[in-house]
């Protein structure tokens, strides 16, 4: 089983989001995998050399300075052929969903999205993946070489570090790349806080937070004392209390931090779909009947405006003491 792992980049630097795909490669391919990173003057390449890849290929070209699927896809297909890959893998994200499905189309080969398990049985792949907004798990049999896969980050965890460092080699970019799509701008970003999908701690708030200032004061304040990221429910986003890139849930991001604190979140199915793989869940809600308490490890029935400031104080003391 020869695996090609596609590193996530924004064209300028490699992202830690690639780690679950590397963990998948270690588990499924043993040491038989190659990593491909695409961009221009990429930083952070050395962070990818510690996980036992046979080689780390770097496709560097000014035309690849921004992550446009139309341009990246032919680079990936060329690498698939060169590596003789049976599996093409990346961690599930908007980057990989955009890029790898185009790659599968170019290769005319099947793709399985967001998988949580993988096995080979009677010559075909057997994978499990969440379907119906993660309300159910489907088992799929698939044949086709190569198979294209995105792997659900929380299900695969982190790769182990190996002693031998992978050699970094330049990868020859095809002379002809489609350059019809043009990258114009990116707005947003976590504003100094850790990336929501990678943070060790996530503090999320719901609709009762009233307005952006209140949301920032209570949810942002609690996240900062824990060094965590900020998340929000769809209702909070729809009400204009928090920006959409903070949305956790079926229509937003899937997170699985070590600690998830849900503040004034009732716990709709749509929200639970995005956070129920978290290791420890804390719920703070004034309504003792809120469904969030059914998934929470620790529940506190209380008014957020009373307890969040106390919690911030208590955590400051706990951390300093």
């Amino acid at each position, binding site marked *: 089983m020869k695996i090609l792992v596609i590193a996530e980049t924004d064209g300028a630097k490699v992202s830690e*989001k690639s780690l679950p795909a590397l963990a998948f490669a270690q588990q499924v391919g043993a040491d038989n995998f190659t990593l491909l990173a695409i961009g221009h003057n990429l930083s952070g390449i050395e962070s990818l050399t510690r996980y036992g890849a046979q080689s780390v290929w770097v496709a560097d070209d000014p035309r690849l300075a921004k992550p*446009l699927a139309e341009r990246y896809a032919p680079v990936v297909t060329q690498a698939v052929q060169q590596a003789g890959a049976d599996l093409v893998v990346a961690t599930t*994200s*908007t980057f990989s*969903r*955009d890029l790898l*499905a*185009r790659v*599968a*189309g*170019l290769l*005319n*080969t*099947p793709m399985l*999205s967001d998988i949580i398990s993988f096995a080979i049985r009677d010559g075909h792949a*057997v994978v499990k993946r969440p*379907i*119906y*907004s993660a*309300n*159910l*798990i*489907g*088992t*799929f*049999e698939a*044949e*086709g070489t190569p198979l294209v896969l995105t792997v659900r980050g929380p299900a695969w965890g982190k790769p182990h570090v190996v002693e031998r460092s992978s050699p970094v080699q330049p990868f020859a970019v095809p002379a002809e790349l*489609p350059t*019809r*799509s043009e*990258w*114009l*701008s990116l*707005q947003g970003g976590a504003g100094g806080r850790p990336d*929501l999908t990678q943070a060790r*701690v996530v503090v999320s708030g719901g609709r009762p937070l009233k307005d952006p200032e209140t949301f920032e004061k209570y949810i942002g304040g609690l996240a900062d004392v824990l060094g965590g990221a900020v998340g929000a429910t769809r209702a909070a986003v729809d009400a204009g209390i928090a920006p*959409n*890139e903070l949305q956790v849930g079926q*229509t937003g*991001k899937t997170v699985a931090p070590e*600690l998830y604190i849900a503040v004034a979140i009732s716990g709709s199915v749509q929200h639970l779909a995005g956070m*129920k793989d978290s*290791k*420890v*869940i*804390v719920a703070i809600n004034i309504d003792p009947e809120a469904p969030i308490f*059914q*998934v929470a*490890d*620790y*529940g*506190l029935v*209380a008014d957020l405006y009373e307890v969040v400031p*106390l*919690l911030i104080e*208590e*955590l400051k003391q*706990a*951390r300093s003491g």
Partner: protein
Amino acid sequence: MKIVVTVKRVPDPYAKISPNAEGTDIAQEGLQWAVNPFDEIALEEAIRLKEAGKATEIVAVSIGDEASQEQLRTALAMGADRAILVQTTERLEPLSIAHILARIYQREQPQLVLMGKQAIDTDDNQVGQMLAALLDLPQATFASKITIENGTATIQRETDAGIETIRVPLPAIITADLRLNEPRYVALTGIIRARSKPLEVLTPAELGITPQARVRLVAVERPPARQAGKRVQDVKELVRLLKEEARVI
């Protein structure tokens, strides 16, 4: 400008979905069906482009069994001009769907294909990108804003990093995200008008496609349930437990 919009028949997004008794698929008894919400958003966008004078014709396309006519009638009632059903009872994988849509594209020669970023049943999020690859066209996935001008589309995309803006020349494939718009309710006059709009039925074979089944759904189960934990009395107890029991702070 002609726009092709995809319309998938899926279980109602608010329905409670369970595995069937054999655990091979979902239980379909008593299930309500609807237009895939992301496709509905794509259709709404096409209708708004037509109302703004940027589009001249909207063709709604569905692939599925005969019952998908119901969702195409909804699309016609919302404002599509005509509909095509590629009728099949087989469960088709995303790549086969993309091949069928590629044939529809060649037949219709639209300047724009608008579709949902994913269907809320199998959540693959693949068909738009695969279609763009098969047709060698630009793609813009997860659109939250689309501006059409002088043969180009400028698209705001909802990415993990924030809102990315890209520009693509038409023809192109654009997939809709949740925040692109809020679809309108179907008016009674629309329902009446929809009855007289054309709905063509084709088969994959008539389009020259023999669908491959390289991905098969073989089992459906519920995910393991999470157990409720304990109630804590106050902030002090919570912090102590997080520190000493859960060891996460």
